[in-house]
């Protein structure tokens, strides 16, 4: 269910600003839509999303119904050392998801 794509530059130098792009497959239900039987579809957005780089947390986000389905984010971190970028999220339905990508820092 949980599926995400993370895009990082193939190689960066220490101290560089690294562009991080992530796209998560998620419906981001607003809670205002109704299904074919007229029942309200429960709100389901990414209430908590975090990104850790090495042992440091670099971004914490809370995305509401005002964020489009399959949320896409782009931000920049400072390259310190080679390591994993780990994204973890929880939606309103309580479902957890995670995705990781390796950042290679040269020099």
């Amino acid at each position: 269910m949980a599926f995400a794509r993370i895009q990082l530059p193939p190689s960066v130098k220490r101290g560089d600003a690294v562009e991080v792009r992530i796209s998560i497959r998620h419906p981001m239900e607003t809670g205002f839509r109704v299904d074919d039987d007229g029942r309200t579809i429960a709100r389901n957005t990414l209430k908590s999303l975090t990104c850790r780089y090495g042992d440091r947390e670099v971004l914490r986000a809370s995305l509401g119904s005002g964020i489009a389905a399959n949320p896409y984010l782009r931000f920049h971190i400072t390259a310190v050392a080679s390591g994993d970028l780990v994204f973890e999220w929880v939606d309103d339905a309580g479902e957890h998801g995670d995705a990781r990508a390796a950042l290679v820092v040269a020099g």
Partner: protein
Amino acid sequence: MSDDVSSLPALRSLARRRVLVAGGALVALRAVPARAQTASELPQVAALADDLAGRVPRFGRLSLVIPRLADNGNAVPLRIAMSGLFPAGTELKSIRLYSPKNPVALMARFDFPAPPAKPEVDMRVRLAGTQRIAAIAELANGELHAAVADVDVTISACLDGT
């Protein structure tokens, strides 16, 4: 192709003049409502007023980059960026995004536990109609910066009247 070639430039210049006049009229029309609202006027949003709690944000450094006309309110590309320097103690801590027309006013919130390499976040937002959205950035020293952007939305994200 048997047209008198010498008359063509004159025709063209006439057509061009008409376009210019029409364009000028359009600019004049647009300018009137634009002047009625100050460029730095925050939209009336309860959640925004609560979060500001009487504090007055500064304008100028924070910017919202969004198409002036959004065809599809279900996914509008948006960039929130900040300019200027961030000396020690004034790092970017958080950014919040507000909408006066969406059923949930606080659209998103971003916290930066570590200072970002670039004070910039991109995302795609849902917009329930033409409106003026606002972003508030908070620095480590408590300083607040605001930005607003007017967006015309042709297809609203919420079609059920909420």
